[in-house]
């Protein structure tokens, strides 16, 4: 029996009657604890929506999502994040009025982040301890030199790495990344690949949506393929590359395995 950390059971999401996720029988799959799952499929297959359902950004129309045995289908986003789930967005999100380092600091569970602590001025020592962790995260994603910049000065690829840093600093048990290499240059992709391999080795569960299969298939230990919101195939990267249904629907006929 494998140890499943995240489980989807018959999950359905409808937008005004249009079933974006679920297909005829609802979407079900599990993610192994410590595993590295690649989630792929054509544009509009429902990958990002699936992330939104897992992280509570929108509630499922039907079905159940469980994290470590806890039903999280009805929990708010913040509650799910507090259980140790991290995620990034396909369009990177940043706090536009804050500096790069403050964008990462917000990611930390700050013990003195209350109105009272602010008024009493008793946050400075906690802040000093945490700032080192934020700087270490920025170092890992190659943004340490930009730490005092305003985020409005960052490029698209840099914003994506900033969002990764904001999640890294939280040390989530399970991390969902939505197209982390989109718009990121090859050197930085190499760095990202190292980071993910490092997290994987340290036991973090990873679920990664990616159209960059060269990147994904070298890292993932299992793959789920979605099409029209339904599960098309599930297996190891090698199985998936050879699956005729996947080749027809997503990889294309002249795909080189």
């Amino acid at each position, binding site marked *: 029996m494998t140890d499943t950390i995240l489980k989807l059971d018959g999950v359905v999401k409808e937008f005004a009657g249009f079933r974006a996720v679920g297909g005829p029988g609802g979407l079900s799959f599990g993610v192994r604890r410590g595993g590295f799952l690649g989630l792929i499929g054509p544009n509009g297959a429902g990958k990002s929506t699936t992330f939104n359902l897992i992280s509570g950004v929108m509630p499922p129309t039907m079905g159940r999502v469980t994290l470590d045995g806890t039903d999280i289908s009805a929990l708010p986003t913040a509650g799910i994040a507090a259980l140790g789930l991290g995620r990034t*967005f396909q369009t990177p999100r940043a706090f536009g009025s804050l500096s790069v380092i403050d964008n990462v600091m917000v990611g930390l569970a700050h013990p003195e982040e209350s109105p009272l602590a602010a008024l009493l001025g008793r946050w400075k020592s906690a802040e000093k301890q945490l700032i080192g962790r934020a700087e270490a995260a920025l170092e890992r994603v190659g943004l340490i030199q930009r730490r005092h910049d305003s985020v409005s000065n960052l490029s698209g690829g840099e914003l994506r790495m900033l969002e990764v840093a904001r999640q890294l600093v939280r040390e989530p048990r399970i991390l969902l990344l939505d197209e982390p290499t989109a718009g990121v240059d090859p050197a930085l992709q190499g760095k990202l690949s190292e980071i993910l391999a490092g997290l994987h080795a340290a036991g973090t569960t990873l679920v990664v949506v990616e159209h960059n299969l060269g990147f994904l298939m070298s890292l993932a230990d299992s793959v789920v393929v979605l099409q029209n919101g339904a599960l098309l195939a599930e297996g190891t990267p090698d199985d998936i590359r050879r699956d005729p249904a996947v080749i027809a629907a997503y990889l294309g006929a002249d795909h080189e395995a």
Partner: protein
Amino acid sequence: MIQSLILSTLMFGAMFSVLTVSLNLQYARGGMINFGTVAYFAAGAYAYAIFTQEPPSGLDQYAFGFDLPWWVGFLAAGLAAMLFALVTGWPTLRLRGEYLALTTFAFAEVFHSILLNERRIGNGSVGMANVERPDPASIGLDDTLGYTLAACALMLLTAWLFHRLLASPYGRLVDATRDDEIAAESVGKDTARVRLQIFVISAIPIGFAGALYAMITTLVAPALFTAEVTFFVWIALALGGERTIPGAILGTLALVFFQELVRAIPFETVRGAQIAASAEEVITGILFILVLRWQPWDRLSRKAGS
């Protein structure tokens, strides 16, 4: 005459600055549009009057008068505004932008009409006159100077506390919540709570200012607490450039100075005074349009920055 103009500008300017600074916290930092500001101000003023006045007698229609010392009334004013913010904020803060603006406006209108029609609160439209107040002469000051200093103290204390509140990890969380709620939620922050906290915290000084207003005018009546107060504070905030606390204060002082100036002109006839009052409104409107059109504060800060 010049001296009394300066003093009354400072007195009312500082008092209304408390409202503008609080609104600055709600709007510029919290991202919430509150068009019901006057209701928290009125809640403070009425709470102060009710706690300090004598029990009803004779023609009084109000039901409560606790005859307590002024400072109890003052604290009650802050508490009343806070509770009113909790009650109005809790159901409405999931609304955004103009929806929140409309709901808060509606709450304030309902509150106003309750004050007007429920005579047991404060004598209905007549209001409560001769509100008790501490006598500045007891510390050797005349009335105007005493209340001017009190208003300035309340303004400075509010500005200092809000500055302290925001220059902190909590302030960073407030900014993050306004910038991108979903991103903040995704790192485990309870943004609904942050928004309610900011809404409630910023109402407290507004309640204190209401108590001070009741002391200065010695009268609380529904006619003093109309939507005009809300719009006055919003205009002052826009004039001051809405981003910084000093800007909010300067905008308010400028607007109050302008109004006091018009009121200080001696008129021979009632007709003349009426014309002046209308002219004042027209000129306020024109000033407002000019400031919005030319954004002088933005230009200044850009110049200072480059």
